[in-house]
């Protein structure tokens, strides 16, 4: 049964009214050669039963191993109450309501989300979320270029330690907007952005500096020094942070003498399952003085004529339905459902719960690294403090090792050679609060066997 509400009779009567012979006639203005006549690549439809069989087969192909992969998406515990509440009918809407003020419950939730994010980041203002962390950073770059009107160069410094997918996404979105992205190298010993390389740009017209914390290697950057350098150079700062880490690390609003200008990141660690890489959500916060250039929606608290509190969309005048191509963003969707889950997650965990989780992740990763580096052929690559990820060097090809581990149901980490040819034999590992001592011991024992098998094979 086709799920199309119009009967043939409906269609014919509508065509009669507008004086057209057929629906095809409505598309006459499209040149013939551009029309797609058939959909050969799309197979015939299947019944629900047939689809269920296929999907079960495919689901069974998923690796259900012990996860020690981080690299931007993290295997955290999500209390059952979070998604039980989120999927209640009252909340289960994936998008900004179009009659916004009729949905006071959703607006109140978004307002509370914004309040939590400003508390976590130490910033003045939060928007109601963006599409994901990577596109959120691209929005941060575009916003910084709009805000920093004294700078004419449209040059943005991007550390090589920033997540590779974020670097690609930012490049894709801003490349054709006359913005120049300049890569900042990292120190090979510490895994941190090289401050000497940054210093070379002192006195130059640099519009913005991105500061990842922790960086892709898990390493904590010299965020105070970088923020202060930028402030002294009339360069705007954009922090790209893991929100969970902020429960125990200094918030970006307090970096350096005056804090960063814009703070973005990926919300997935706060109550969103890993689920094949999405949907996630991006967050964005900024200083009050920059708020009019902030993309996306902001919910404000106000009072009605009777003095009762209520919530309203605010600062809408620069959004795309009013400003069109001059809007602060044209991809400023928010992720209503993900933010709902995240807000409930944060409310349930509380500041103390989040700090406890972040601390457990850090401690587990330290334990794991201790166990792994005790093995022959495994070493720490960088000598720097980390949050909950660490780069290790192996004395065997990482891709082969990861494959052998996965056959033993251990997802052993992320091979950095994919993105960093200079880190060819390096593995990025992560142990969240969910990993037990036994699981970590299993990883260490399995890795030991894999490496010694490899040595015998040579």
């Amino acid at each position, binding site marked *: 049964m086709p799920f199309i509400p119009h009967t043939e009779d409906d269609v014919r009567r509508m065509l009669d009214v507008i004086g057209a012979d057929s629906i095809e006639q409505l598309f006459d203005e499209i040149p013939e050669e551009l029309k797609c006549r058939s959909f050969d690549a799309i197979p015939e439809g299947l019944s629900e039963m047939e689809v269920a069989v296929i999907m079960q087969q495919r689901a069974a192909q998923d690796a259900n191993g012990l996860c020690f992969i981080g690299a931007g998406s993290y295997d955290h515990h999500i209390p059952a109450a979070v998604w039980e509440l989120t999927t209640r009918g009252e909340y289960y809407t994936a998008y900004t309501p179009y009659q916004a003020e009729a949905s006071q419950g959703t607006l109140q939730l978004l307002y509370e989300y914004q309040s939590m994010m400003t508390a976590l980041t130490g910033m003045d203002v939060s928007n109601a979320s963006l599409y994901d962390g990577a596109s959120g950073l691209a929005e941060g770059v575009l916003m910084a270029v709009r805000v920093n009107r004294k700078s004419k160069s449209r040059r943005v410094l991007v550390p090589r330690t920033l997540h590779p997918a974020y670097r690609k996404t930012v490049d894709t979105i801003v490349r054709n907007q006359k913005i120049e992205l300049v890569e900042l190298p990292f120190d090979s010993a510490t895994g941190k952005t090289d401050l000497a390389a940054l210093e070379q740009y002192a006195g130059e017209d640099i519009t913005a500096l991105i500061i990842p914390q922790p960086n892709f290697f898990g390493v904590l950057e010299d965020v105070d020094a970088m923020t202060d350098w930028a402030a002294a150079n009339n360069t705007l700062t954009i922090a790209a942070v893991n929100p969970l880490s902020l429960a125990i690390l200094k918030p970006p609003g307090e970096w350096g003498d005056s804090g960063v200008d814009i703070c973005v990141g990926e919300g997935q660690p706060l109550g969103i399952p890993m689920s094949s890489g999405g949907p996630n959500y991006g967050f964005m916060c900024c200083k009050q003085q920059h708020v009019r250039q902030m993309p996306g929606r902001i919910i404000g608290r106000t009072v009605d004529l009777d003095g009762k509190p209520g919530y309203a969309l605010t600062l809408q*005048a620069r959004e795309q339905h009013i400003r069109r191509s001059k809007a602060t963003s044209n991809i400023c969707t928010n992720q209503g459902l993900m933010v709902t889950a995240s807000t409930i997650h944060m409310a349930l965990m509380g500041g103390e719960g989040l700090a406890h989780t972040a601390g457990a992740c850090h401690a587990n990763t330290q334990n794991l690294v201790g166990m792994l580096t005790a093995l022959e052929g495994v070493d720490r690559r960088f000598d720097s403090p980390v949050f909950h990820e660490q780069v290790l060097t192996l004395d065997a090809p990482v891709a082969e090792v990861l494959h052998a581990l996965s056959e033993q149901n251990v997802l052993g980490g992320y091979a950095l050679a994919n993105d960093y040819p200079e880190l060819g034999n390096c593995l990025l590992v992560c142990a969240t609060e969910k990993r037990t001592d036994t699981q970590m011991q299993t990883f260490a024992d399995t890795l030991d066997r894999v490496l010694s098998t490899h040595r015998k094979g040579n």
Partner: protein
Amino acid sequence: MSNTPSDLKYTKSHEWIRDNGDGTVTLGITDHAQELLGDLVFVEVPESGTEVEAGGEIAVVESVKAASDVYSPVTGEVVEANEALADAPESVNDSPYEDGWICKIRLSDTSQLEALMDADSYATHAEEEEH
């Protein structure tokens, strides 16, 4: 009926221009424009030193309803912006021709002013737009 002082020049896009007699002009939006926009909540003024082309965007006035561009009808360089609008955007509503001025521009060529509308032409234009 909106106020359109006779000593000023006007544009079709509802800016006013005052000839300061020293090679500079002062620019703002008309009483009629501020009435259409409603209560202003923010005015984004240009940086001093900005080079502006006739017909180019020079400022943004934001009300609760809309954010609208302000265009410069003249070519020149911005020599001063009304920074007081940052804290008091309502000046544009209360006093569009005095306290609510937006910026001052040094003209590249003073003959540019001749092409602008006088108060009567602008009043007629604004009235026609209404209908």
